[in-house]
C-alpha cells in the first residue's frame, strides 16, 4: 500500500513533464508525439537543436500548433489539432507514414501509458474494464520507433501502481519502452531492470521506490530532475 501522504504530495505538472521529455530530443531527431502531454513537448525543443516532427496521419516537419479556429483544416496533426506550415514540411499517405515508423526512420516516439513493466512492456490502448480500446498507430509506433519514451503519472488516481512487475492490461507491445518520465521520476529501462535516474524536487529515491512496484536500481549519478 502506498502511503496517503505520498499520494497527496506535490508532483510535477504537465508542462514540466513535457519540458523534461523534450530534453531527450537530440539535434536532427525525427520525433512522433502522441496525444496530451507528449504533444506539449513540441513547445520545449532545446535551443539550437533542429527536430523534425512526424505525425502518423502523413506529415513530416510541421510547425507550431495554431490557436483553435485559426488553422487550415487540411493541415492537422494526428490529434486533430491544426498546425502551421513550416519550411521543409512534406506530406505522404498512411502506407508511407508507417514505412517511416516500421522501417527504422523514426528516432523517438513519445506516448502516454496505463502501465509499464520492469521489462519495458507497454499497455496504452485499452482499459480492461471497458472491453474495447483503440490500437490506432500506438502499436506500430511502439514496435517501430528506435526509442520509446513514455510520459505518464507515476500512479493512478486511486494510488495503484503504473510502473509494475508484470502488466495486467492488454499489451500494446512487449519489451519496447526505453525511458519513463513521470510526475515524480525519470526511469530508464535496462536489461538489468529499472534504473532510477532522476526524482522530482521534494522527493527522495526511497519515496519513488514506494510508489513503484518493482525494485528500482538507483543510478550512481541519481539526482534531482534538472530542466535546464
Amino acid at each position, binding site marked *: 500500500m502506498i502511503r496517503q501522504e505520498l499520494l497527496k504530495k506535490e508532483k510535477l505538472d504537465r*508542462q514540466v513533464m513535457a519540458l523534461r521529455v523534450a530534453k531527450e530530443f537530440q539535434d536532427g531527431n525525427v520525433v512522433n508525439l502522441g496525444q496530451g502531454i507528449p504533444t506539449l513537448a513540441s513547445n*520545449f525543443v532545446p535551443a539550437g537543436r533542429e527536430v523534425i516532427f512526424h505525425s502518423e496521419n502523413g506529415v513530416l516537419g510541421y510547425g507550431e500548433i495554431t*490557436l*483553435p479556429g485559426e488553422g487550415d483544416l487540411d493541415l492537422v496533426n494526428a*490529434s486533430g489539432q491544426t498546425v502551421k506550415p513550416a519550411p521543409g514540411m512534406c506530406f505522404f499517405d498512411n*502506407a508511407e*507514414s508507417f514505412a517511416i*515508423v516500421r522501417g527504422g526512420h523514426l528516432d523517438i516516439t513519445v506516448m502516454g501509458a496505463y502501465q509499464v513493466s520492469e521489462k519495458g512492456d507497454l499497455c496504452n490502448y485499452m482499459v480492461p474494464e471497458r*472491453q474495447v480500446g483503440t490500437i490506432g498507430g500506438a502499436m506500430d509506433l511502439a514496435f517501430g520507433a528506435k526509442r520509446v519514451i513514455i510520459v505518464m503519472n507515476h500512479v493512478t488516481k486511486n494510488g495503484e501502481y503504473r510502473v509494475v512487475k508484470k502488466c495486467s492490461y492488454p499489451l500494446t507491445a512487449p519489451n519496447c519502452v526505453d525511458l519513463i518520465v513521470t510526475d515524480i521520476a525519470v526511469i530508464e529501462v535496462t536489461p538489468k531492470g529499472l534504473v532510477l535516474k532522476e526524482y522530482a524536487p521534494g522527493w527522495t529515491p526511497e519515496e519513488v521506490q514506494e510508489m513503484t512496484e518493482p525494485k528500482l536500481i538507483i543510478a550512481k549519478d541519481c539526482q534531482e530532475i534538472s530542466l535546464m
Partner: protein
Amino acid sequence: MPINKIVASFDEAVADVFDGATIMVGGFGTVASIPSCLLEAVYRKGVKNLTTVSNASGFGADIWKLQGAPFPEDMDILVRNERIKKAIISAPVSALYVNNFEKLLRAGKIEIEMVPQGTLAERIRAAKAGLGGVYIPVGVGTVVEQGKEKRVFDGKEYLLELPIKADFALIHAHKGDRWGNLVYRGTSRTFNPVMAGAAKVTIAEVDEIVELGELDPEAIVTPGVYVDRVVQRPKPVRTQGEIKDEQAKASYSKFSEDYKRATMGKKGGAQ
C-alpha cells in the same frame, strides 16, 4: 472515344452499392480528409449489412458543424444509422467519451476486427498491389498475433497479414481530371491514395474537377488507372451547429482544452 470517369452526382456515383457490400472509406479522423458527400449518398441509398474498412469510426456531424466544416458527415452517419455489420478498423473508440460505435459494440450490434493503423494501410496496399500477403512485425506478442502464421526473418518474428479487398473504395481528393488522376491537399491525403485501386470500384470525391493536362504530372499522387469514378463537391457553404449529445459535448470541450494547453507557453521553459 474520350475516357470520361466524371459522374454528375453523388447518388449516381454510388448507385450500384449493394446490401452486404464491403466498402473502404478514406481519410483519417478529422472530417476534412473524409469523403463526406459519398458517405451521405451511401446512407441515402439505404444499403445495410455493410462491411466497412476505415481508420476511425467518426465523431458525428455535430462536432464538425461547430468547426464550420462545409461537409460535416463522417463514418458516424453509417454507424449511428446502424448500416454496418462489421468494421475493419484501427481507431474504433474515443479515449474521451463513449461514441456511437462503442454503444453499438456494447449492444452486440456490430462486429469488429481491430487492426494496427500501419498494418491496416499495408494490408490495403497489398490488395491494391496484387500481393498474396505481407509479413509485418507489429503485434507479435499481443492480441494481434492470434490465429496468424508467424515467421522468423533475420532473427526477428513477423506475422503474415493478408490483403484487405473491397467492393468499393470511397475516397476524397483535392483535384481530379476525367482520367481519374488525383492530387490531395495537406494532411487530407492519409488513407485516400492507399485505398485507391484496392477495391473493385474506386470512387473519388474531389473538391474540384480540372481539365485533362492541368494537373502537373510530377505532382499527381494517384494515377487515374486506380480510379473508376470522379464526382465533384458542390460549392462549399460554411455550416453552423450545436452539439446535442451530452457526452460528445463534454468530449469536445476536453479536446478544446487540450488544444489551448498545447498552444500555451510557446516561449517558456528551455527556450
